[in-house]
């Protein structure tokens, strides 16, 4: 048992740190903070292209497909340094979600067609899983794909589709059969967002932003060549992806940075002549969260280590998802308490100078949108069902 870093790991850490310091520059950060969706989108693409040029855009991909081939330690270091430097994570839909599905289950033609564009961020992906009637019970999905010659004809609707307004492609779970168990008639399709019959309806969320959408499919023709793997076997591929999504959902590194920020913030807030951070009750609120996070960091490491020696991330990833999102939400709630009255200030209403307070609207936005974390990626209730069944054997 040893969690210390070898000298080459330390050298790697320094290299990563230096890269972020240089490449994630102020000009880029300015554009990433832009309220203009077009400027924001281009900034994200530019950043991911810089990572790609460095060869680091896909830490979790195998070398043969353009990944880094890093071991668990290096991936951990990279992720920790990224979060500590306040560098935004890549948009997950292409690089973390559909990419791995394509290189695991796609055919040669699909790998050649899609993987390079994902790595180069030339094509933006979104995820078509949830439907208005299918949330936690994902397998009950009804969006239909009917075979017609060399095409499928897709009809139905997907919902909560993040960044559909930016996307070139959507990967979808569709129903190709209603025979047998509901999981057995589902297929995994890649659909061009420019296809006739697709309509994107924006959804404004409780943080007053537009990132979510409903995507309608009205007789959308999709070439059969865009089917991943076998027809009716899509659930298997999706499950592999969901488990993958859940290991990254813990967000330990980002939570550590958030905790450090809140700590500084609370040190600068004064109540009754005393720094908020010096207040014993506040300290207890904060340490309750930090202790949980310290444990979670090692829980995540234990899961990563077991994956590294061939264990698939299974039900353990459900625990990472539950605990990780609980910590995220607890931190967001704590930051709101630090912001006090300023938590209510909406973005775009005042400049930070007018407000005289930098944190209010940022805290509010992350708190409000943060409510989604215990709902998406399989709600935490569903994750508990998985643990009860798969781990406890209930």
């Amino acid at each position: 048992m040893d969690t210390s870093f070898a000298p080459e790991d330390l050298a790697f850490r320094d290299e990563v740190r230096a890269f972020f310091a240089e490449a994630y520059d102020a000009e880029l950060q300015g554009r990433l903070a832009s309220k203009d969706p077009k400027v924001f989108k281009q900034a994200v693409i530019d950043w991911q292209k810089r990572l790609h040029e460095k060869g680091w855009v896909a830490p979790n991909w195998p070398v043969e497909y353009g990944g880094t081939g890093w071991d668990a330690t290096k991936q951990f270091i990279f992720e920790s340094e990224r979060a500590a430097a306040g560098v935004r994570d890549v948009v997950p839909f292409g690089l973390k979600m559909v990419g791995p599905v394509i290189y695991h289950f796609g055919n040669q033609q699909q790998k050649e067609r899609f993987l390079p564009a994902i790595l180069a961020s030339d094509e933006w992906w979104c995820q078509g899983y949830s439907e208005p009637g299918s949330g936690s019970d994902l397998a009950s999905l009804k969006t239909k794909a009917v075979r017609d010659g060399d095409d499928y004809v897709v009809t139905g609707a997907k919902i909560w589709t993040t960044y559909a307004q930016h996307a070139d492609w959507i990967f979808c779970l569709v129903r190709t059969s209603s025979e047998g168990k509901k999981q057995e008639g589902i297929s995994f399709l890649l659909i061009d967002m420019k296809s006739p019959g697709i309509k994107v309806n924006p959804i404004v969320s409780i943080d007053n932003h537009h990132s979510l959408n409903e995507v309608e499919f009205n007789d959308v023709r999709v070439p059969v060549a865009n089917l991943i793997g076998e027809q009716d076997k899509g659930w298997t591929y999706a499950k592999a992806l969901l488990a993958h999504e859940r290991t990254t959902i813990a967000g330990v590194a980002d939570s550590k940075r958030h905790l450090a920020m809140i700590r500084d913030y609370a040190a600068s807030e004064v109540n009754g002549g005393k720094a908020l951070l010096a207040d014993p009750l506040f300290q207890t609120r904060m340490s309750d969260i930090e202790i949980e996070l310290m444990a979670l960091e090692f829980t995540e490491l234990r899961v990563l280590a077991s994956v590294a020696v061939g264990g698939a991330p299974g039900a353990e990833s459900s625990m990472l998802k539950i605990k990780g999102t609980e910590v995220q939400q607890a931190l967001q709630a704590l930051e709101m308490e630090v912001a006090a009255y300023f938590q209510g200030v909406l973005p775009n209403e005042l400049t930070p100078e007018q407000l005289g307070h930098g944190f209010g609207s940022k805290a509010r936005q992350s708190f409000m949108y943060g409510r989604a974390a215990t709902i998406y990626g399989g709600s935490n209730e569903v994750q508990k069902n998985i643990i009860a069944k798969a781990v406890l054997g209930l």
Partner: protein
Amino acid sequence: MNFDFTEEQVMLRDSVARFVQDDYDFDTRRRIAGSDEAMSRDNWRIFAELGWLSIPFAEEHGGFGGNAVDTMVVMEQLGKGLVLEPYFATVVLFGGLLQRGGSAAQLEHYLPQIIGGECLGAFAYLERQSRYELADVKTTATRMDGGYRLDGEKVVVFNGASADQLIVSARTSGAQSDEGGISLFLVPADAPGVERLDYRLMDGQRVANIVFSGVELAADALVGELDKGYELMQALVLEANVALAAEAVGIMELLNAKTVEYTKTRKQFGVAIGSFQALQHRMVDTFMAYEQTKSLLYRAVCAMTDDNEDAVTAIHALKVMVDRAGKLVFGEAIQMHGGMGLTDELDIGHYAKRLMMINTTFGNGDYHQEKFNALRYQQ
């Protein structure tokens, strides 16, 4: 011993409830929130006609002569409608301060105007640095010939943008955080040297940061005694926290009801999700949290109307519970509504945002817990 409302209180409750139900549905509320003033002056006139603006004021000034129970009854129902019109700012805060500390001339002049709906008021107490400490006041009122000169800035002033009259806390002597040496002043919002920057908060209300630059005030602008404003504010804030708690209780009741209803109709895995025991027990918890908060609210209100010495302890306890129970209730409401709970279109998130602003107004749960601890356990 009984917990019944009087006949008059039942009528009052039903009158507010009926208005919310018939004239303040969520679409109407959304439209009002999006309007320039984020409130409806037509509604305000209706409130005046229905007598709601007269509730806490003495009969000799044309008021209803109500007590904490009457205010509670109104606030609970206003909470259910997420009513944006500035009842809390004008009647509870501004009117409440005048009622407690106003001179005979001030009462005679302003109370009939408030009751008639002609005067909107605001209480400007918060400063950038002050958080929850009412005594942390940098704004100064300097003695000058025949009056005072007001300089400083107040922030997040509820109804500060629409108010005709402000009551402003200012330092007349002592150091920045001294309880002594604070005085309250009536300031017309259009007085020379008053500059307002207005903006909206997440709960839909419009507030203002207000800068006072050499605002000249006559000697009779003083509300209450010179240098004794802190005591006045403290007494008012106790009342105000009870009124906010009543609003929160109304919101919690509604969120719980909406959530139970939703889980009865939303089907997943072939059944209504409300049939899952894991969710049922959580809804039982939110139900009990609401009932317990309501009990503490009644306890605080009874202690206030009896002028019981436990009132202060009960009010601190109440604000702690409003914080904890409120977060549980809105957190579960959003979670059980799933993705729908995340949308701006649904009302659930809007109730959550109002509960959050209630929590932070005049001290969050932790702040009141420390006050409670000091009262109960200090050696």
